[in-house]
């Protein structure tokens, strides 16, 4: 089986994000493999290690810079890496991102597709399912248990008040939730092996798309501006006798915080 893991480059959750002129400032920010995507890679590697003829591929859509993240994902033990590199990537909405990934998937071939349930930067949680729909594949999202037997996938996902069990044939798309498995750390041997493995960079042209299909042109959604969350002001302790403090509390809730 060709098992393809979709991997997004995201800012490190510990990175200090600053906004300048409505755009996120990226200098000094470290970029990592989207943590939810690691569950997908782990599941793919487990399938491979259980035996049989399987290959694990990493597929990333991003700018040139995302090559590093694709390689980091490969360092977990994948066999091959693919990057669709285009400067428009940050301006693509979920629909367009899925369109690009689906075109690349058609180009490289697939028998099974894993991705994270969401990316930790834009939290849109749509790409995996959209890819499946575009490729007319079955899909299950937010999966926390996965089994593959005789070409059939059995997954579980948490729903209100219980677990939902879904069975479907491969190929299909699974979006992975925390708890699905315990992603490994890259071993040093696998780190050393990355540059010896095939790594392909596609242009849009390579996968049959053009500049009109992507970025602001190809997207339904346009991000007009980013704003940092308001900085939390330090708390204030109102001191004094209960009668006075209660009065002062009500006054400040009414006049300063304007919540009552």
């Amino acid at each position, binding site marked *: 089986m060709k098992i393809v893991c979709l991997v997004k480059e995201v800012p490190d959750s510990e990175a200090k994000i600053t906004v300048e002129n409505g755009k996120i400032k990226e200098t000094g920010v470290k970029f*990592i493999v989207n943590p939810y995507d690691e569950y997908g890679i782990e599941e793919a590697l487990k399938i491979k290690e259980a035996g049989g003829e399987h290959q694990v591929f990493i597929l990333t859509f991003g700018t040139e810079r995302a090559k*590093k993240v694709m*390689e*980091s994902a490969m*360092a977990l033990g994948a066999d091959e890496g693919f990057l669709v590199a285009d400067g428009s990537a940050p301006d693509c909405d979920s629909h367009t991102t899925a369109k690009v990934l689906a075109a690349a998937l058609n180009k490289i071939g697939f028998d099974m597709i894993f991705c994270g349930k969401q990316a930790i930067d834009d939290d849109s949680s749509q790409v995996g399912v959209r890819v499946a729909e575009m490729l007319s594949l079955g899909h299950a999202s937010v999966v926390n248990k996965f089994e593959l037997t005789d070409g059939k996938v059995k997954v579980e996902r948490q729903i209100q008040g219980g677990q939902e069990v879904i069975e479907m044939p491969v190929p299909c798309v699974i979006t992975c939730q925390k708890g699905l498995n315990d992603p*490994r*750390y*890259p*071993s*040093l*041997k696998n*780190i*050393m092996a*990355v*540059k010896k493995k095939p790594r392909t960079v596609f242009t849009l042209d390579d996968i049959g798309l053009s500049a009109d299909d992507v970025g602001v042109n190809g997207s339904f959604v346009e991000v007009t501006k980013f704003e940092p969350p308001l900085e939390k002001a330090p708390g204030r302790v109102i001191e004094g006798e209960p009668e006075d403090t209660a009065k002062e509390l009500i006054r400040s809730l009414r006049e300063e915080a304007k919540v009552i």
Partner: protein
Amino acid sequence: MVDFNLNDEHNMLRDAIRDFAENEIAPIAEQLDEKEEFSLELVAKMSDMNLFGLTIPEEYGGSGMDYLAYIIAVEELARVDGSTAATVAAGNSLGLGPVYYFGNEEQKKEWLPKLCSGKVLGSFGLTEANAGSDAGGTLTVAVQDGDDWIINGSKIFITNGSSEITGFAITQAITGKRDDGKKEYTCFLIPHGTPGFTTKTMHGKMMWRSSNTAELYFEDCRVPNSSILGKRGDGFKQMLSTLDKGRLSIAAMGLGGAQGAYELALKYSQERVQFGKKICKFQANAFKLADMATEIEAARWLLYRACWLHDNDLPFQKEAAMSKLYCSEVMSRVVNHAVQIHGGYGLMREYNIERFYRDQKLLEIGEGTSEVQKIVISRYIGC
């Protein structure tokens, strides 16, 4: 042009080990220290990441990385825990190193794959009760008896010397007199389980409490001629060369430990409020932190350059001794200020900085004291 960029592998390795150390070591480090527990479970996890045999070629089961990669790995472990870094540094520099550099093909084939898998650790026994800085003062003797040698003597403070998975000790012994009348030293690779060879774990250490340290005893211990590491009479040279490289890994522990202690102090000073202000805003503390950051940066590039010299087959011995001296003394100053910044809390077990403060002291003593490094450096500069 000078290029200070690390390569992609170095960066990936640093990220991977930092992640591992923060998630797998940090949560248990204090407990292991408190209980003086050498964790086989942790060794197994580190083996899965190939932390043993980093610089050994793949044909022997290693990862074939350069020395700088190894040093970054030790640095990142030491940033979180000194004992764990010690297990890895000794495993590589003192267990694997001598076998790879000096062992004959048979010894390499037998031991390197096991050592690289992390299933077996090797130890390196040079120090004796009466031969510390003066390693030539060894009293352990080996007497030839037909095709065998009979070894008598003892060693002290041997890292990884008595763990459940230690497979052998490399031991220096006097094997006679050279033509010039000086003592002849030879190293033997003595497997655990050889009759007459026993070990005893040393307890009650102030530092590296979860690293394994042992005394080794040889009483009429009979080993075959084939257990000589490399050639008879090469012992002293082998030991010196092992220590030259080992200094880089002790330096890495100083660098990583200093980095970890500095980060703890910085974070604490940004949270602790006195006189209505975060204490990092007081110039007395801010200047300490600025000094720490500066010295760490200097230490890092001194050490990395020493590794670069080694990796480019250039003479690196002087720079290795300088790195060992400087990095361990930088860490000494950093932990001192870092505890000061923590105030009373810095003296409590509950705060990690307390462990860093204790673990640091070994670095100015082990694998050649600071004074011995100065002797080495002064010889290189022509004193």
